[in-house]
């Protein structure tokens, strides 16, 4: 394998691993902030214990997110030097803004929250976790503005042999960035909700701390329900944007080979990339794809054959990932709607609780699949239409990248196992006893 392939594997692996931890940070920080707010407003000790119990899990998860995030920022320089040089004028500033505006805030106030239980008034302490939650989502916003620019570059001119910023506002306010942002954070909020519901279900099934976990479950359920519904609606609008801005990605998501008006939505198909066709196509709904993508069943949707093979992304992977994401997205709506009707008497539905326990990994899968659609579907471009991935890689020795990739695989595998072991251990352990919670202050 060459430097390009090794660098792609390394970056993909490092990004996916990082994104195993980021969504829980995004979702859980808000849920913890709500819990602590309820405590501050009502004085209900259960909500204080909830903030502390879920906070413990949050801290473990956050630490892994932080350390794996730093490597990403530097990998643009180590492995994608040509890219960094070519688009750094725009892309680099977005990353720097993220660190200065959001990441400082997040890291600093999380530490204050962890160590400040006794030093701060309850209100001020609660404000800290809100700052963490706000900063996490702000951080996601800037990173996703940067990603959106790779999907749909705007506000630049080609000058001095590189892309230079010409309109900062165009870059930071482009609607596509907000589509990606809303889609990603909603997914993360769903994940946070499902995580809390799943862990709560585990304890409710064992009838431990039922009051505590019923409150946790219901809060997470409401949260997840809102965003599961919003995600499906917004996902549709988002898809229509992709159709306009990234036609090759849309055609791959749907495995559509021939350009056609009245394009059908096929319920089941198996793409055959080599022969530029689909092996099996079952359940065609005529005009449905045109309707979804362009809001008119007569609209023409571009097929992959309209683009030369070297401009097409890997079709099968993009297609499968998209189906997985969409299928799971609808499943989340179903599960949360069912939960809504069972919310008053959760313990009477052990079957549902068991499903919710085993559903914990599903939002993780959906989010990873979503990023496959976004990033694999953008190929062969690193910046859509502007720079190819193969032109972006650093001029460095293969051996260096081979060694670092091996190190990443080794270290991240161990780290992943450890992190999920510790999160699971903490989750099973349950909250601290009520008496202790009232007297206890800071973490050790």
């Amino acid at each position: 394998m060459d430097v390009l392939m090794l660098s792609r594997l390394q970056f993909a692996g490092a990004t996916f691993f990082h994104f195993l931890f980021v969504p829980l940070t995004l979702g859980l920080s808000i849920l913890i902030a709500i819990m602590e707010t309820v405590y501050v407003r009502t004085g209900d000790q259960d909500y204080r214990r909830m903030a502390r119990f879920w906070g413990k899990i949050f801290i473990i998860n956050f630490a892994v997110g932080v350390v794996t995030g730093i490597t990403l920022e530097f990998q643009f320089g180590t492995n994608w030097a040509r890219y960094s040089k070519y688009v750094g004028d725009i892309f680099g500033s977005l990353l720097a803004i993220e660190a200065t505006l959001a990441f400082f805030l997040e890291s600093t106030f999380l530490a204050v929250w962890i160590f400040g239980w006794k030093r701060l008034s309850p209100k001020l302490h609660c404000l800290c976790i809100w700052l963490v939650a706000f900063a996490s989502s702000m951080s996601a916003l800037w990173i996703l503005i940067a990603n959106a620019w790779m999907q749909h570059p705007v506000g630049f001119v080609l000058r001095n042999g590189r892309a230079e910023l010409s309109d900062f506002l165009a870059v930071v306010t482009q609607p596509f960035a907000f589509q990606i942002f809303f889609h990603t954070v909603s997914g993360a909020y769903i994940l946070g909700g499902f995580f809390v519901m799943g862990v709560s279900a585990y304890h409710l099934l064992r009838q431990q701390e039922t009051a505590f976990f019923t409150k946790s479950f219901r809060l997470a359920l409401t949260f997840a329900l809102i965003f599961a519904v919003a995600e499906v609606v917004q996902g549709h609008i988002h898809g229509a944007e992709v159709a306009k801005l990234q036609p090759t990605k849309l055609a791959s998501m749907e495995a559509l080979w021939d350009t056609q008006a009245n394009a059908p939505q096929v319920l089941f198909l198996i793409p055959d990339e080599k022969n530029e066709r689909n092996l099996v196509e079952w359940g065609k709904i005529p005009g449905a794809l045109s309707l979804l993508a362009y809001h008119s069943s007569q609209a023409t949707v571009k097929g992959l054959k309209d683009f030369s093979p070297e401009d097409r992304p890997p079709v099968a992977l993009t297609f499968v990932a998209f189906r997985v994401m969409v299928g799971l997205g609808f499943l989340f709506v179903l599960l949360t709607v069912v939960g809504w009707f069972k919310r008053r008497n959760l313990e009477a539905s052990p079957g549902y609780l068991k499903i919710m326990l085993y559903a914990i990994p599903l939002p993780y899968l959906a989010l990873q699949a979503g990023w496959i659609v976004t990033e694999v579907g953008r190929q062969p471009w690193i910046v859509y239409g502007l720079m190819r991935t193969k032109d972006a890689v650093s001029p460095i020795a293969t051996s260096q990248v081979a060694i670092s990739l091996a190190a990443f695989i080794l270290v991240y595998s161990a780290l992943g196992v450890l992190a999920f072991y510790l999160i699971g251990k903490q989750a099973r352990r349950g909250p601290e006893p009520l008496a202790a919670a009232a007297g206890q202050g800071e973490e050790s």
Partner: protein
Amino acid sequence: MLETTWFILWGVLWSVYFMLDGYDLGLGSLLPFLAKNDTERRIIHRAMGPFWDGNEVWLITAGGVTFAAFPTTYAMMFSSLYSALMLILFALIFRGVALAFRGEVDNPRWKAFWDGCLVVGSFLPALLFGVAFANIFRGLPIDAAGIYRGNLFTLLNPYGLLGGVLFVCLFLVHGSLWLAVKTAGALQARAGAMAGRLWPVLLVVAAMFLLGTRTQTPLFNNYQARPVLLLIPTLAVASLIYTYVLIRRAAWWQAWFASSLTIVSITLFGVVGLYPNLFPSSLAPAASLTAFNSASSPLTLKIMLGVALTFVPLVIAYQTWVHFLFKDKVTEQDVTYDEGY
């Protein structure tokens, strides 16, 4: 002008990073030499607990600003120093995880493992940042096509290693002083004595580094051209010596500040000598990357200047508040309090 402003900001951000993360990298490296038992080890952890993550963000910002203001330098510097940088990043992963995971399982072998990770994960970045910056001061083998003709071992030349040892010594003294500030009793006495013992070593290494810089690098050219700039190395020497005076007086807070000033002024001494170079070539001077030929467009530099001048002071303000909030000494009670949970 814009480029020069950014060059100065760039130097300031790195020196603030070294000043802040320097104390917890130093303290992490010294863990087995300062702590005699598990309680003391936990006190040392706790002495950096509320701060280390906020300190590390300065690295992310320094890296991000390099990317934003000097993208060509960011690309060349980080790809050329690939292996060294990867080692630093992996070390920082182990350091961060060690701090977060150590207390999660109550088992001596678990704790001993993470203590080991903390030591290695703190020591390596201290050493390698020094090696990297010394090599940048000296110039790197970059050919006319802008390709780095070297590897990790190219960096391990005598002057590069001297830079590494200098950073290690600076951070060890800095970390000992931080612990002396944050503790009382036997641990404080041990930390203070450690700073006192390490300081003469630091003095010798710093003197050698200064001599090496004179003979191995072109850094003094800028100082000959503008002698007023010699105030910076003078400040470095003065604050280094004053650190020792304060150590002898057991004035720990003041000594830590003097040590901070030493780190900042030594970093700035190098950066000012480097100007306008950011990543100089020892093979082909024309291939050197400078604040001018590697800078972003004026528009980006202006916008980022606005961002930096608005938000960095804000960050400094709330991080200062955090240091005040947790200004109390860490006691045994602090680390045993949560034992039940």
